[in-house]
């Protein structure tokens, strides 16, 4: 365990904290100022991440901030575009259809499966107003 604590890059943690926080501030400003619904903001973030990933820009942010860039939803979009580009390189056109889900499969499947389990074990309740 001590080895692990020594191996942590603390500067990276700080960078992850700041970049992740800033991405959340941008979304918070959008929520407060434009009345966009959360669903639209999530869509906006994923699409932006995917486009920036396709342009090759987002990679620099990931190299800089690690999970600060990959954990927010823009990182989900980046992972989609990264998978697609890698697959297109090896498979051609077919890769455009297989690459995206392949790299994000873990996240999507985990969310669906854990969501289903949570629904199974929880008691249904009335929506609180």
């Amino acid at each position, binding site marked *: 365990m001590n080895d692990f604590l020594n191996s942590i890059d603390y500067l990276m943690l700080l960078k992850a904290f700041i970049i992740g926080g800033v991405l959340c501030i941008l979304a918070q400003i*959008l929520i407060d100022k434009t009345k966009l619904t959360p669903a639209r903001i999530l*869509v906006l973030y994923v699409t932006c991440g995917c486009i920036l990933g396709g342009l090759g820009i987002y990679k620099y942010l990931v190299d800089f901030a690690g999970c600060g860039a990959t954990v927010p939803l823009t990182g989900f979009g980046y992972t989609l575009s990264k998978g697609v580009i890698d697959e297109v390189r090896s498979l051609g056109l077919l890769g455009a259809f297989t690459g995206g889900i392949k790299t994000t499969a873990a996240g999507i499947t985990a969310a669906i499966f854990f969501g289903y389990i949570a629904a199974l074990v929880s008691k249904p309740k009335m929506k609180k107003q």
Partner: protein
Amino acid sequence: MPINSNKEYQNYVDKKSPNSPIFKNCFNAFWVGGLICVIGQLIFDYCIYRGFSKDLASSLVSISLIFISAFLTALNLFNRIGKFAGAGSLIPITGFANSIISPAMEYKSEGYVMGVGTKMFTVAGPVLVYGISTSVIVGIIYLIFNTQAILLV
């Protein structure tokens, strides 16, 4: 003071309604969002330390954070964090997970297929549709130009 016109009424409302505490919201969003990313980074570091590859470590980070999010949502704690942190818990992958898990639990009473199965994707559906469609377009553009677009500019 009687209110005679719409404009006066609007001024009156503006004066009475509290200012949107945008700075407080942003501050809360900043540190909660940052903290979630730091937890992700710690899990990532631990996976690397245990000798996993980078891609596998990223997947494990997503799965772990989604599991934590599912756990907190099931205990009804995540909604409270969400109210406090706003976008801070929405934007990290925990928010995506919450947007799947929360309606799944809520609509259980409407049945397992049309309730849980359908409502799960009320928010996540659009995210996946637009994310995946964009990625296919990115792939096709990459195929045509055979380079990342930034090198073209």
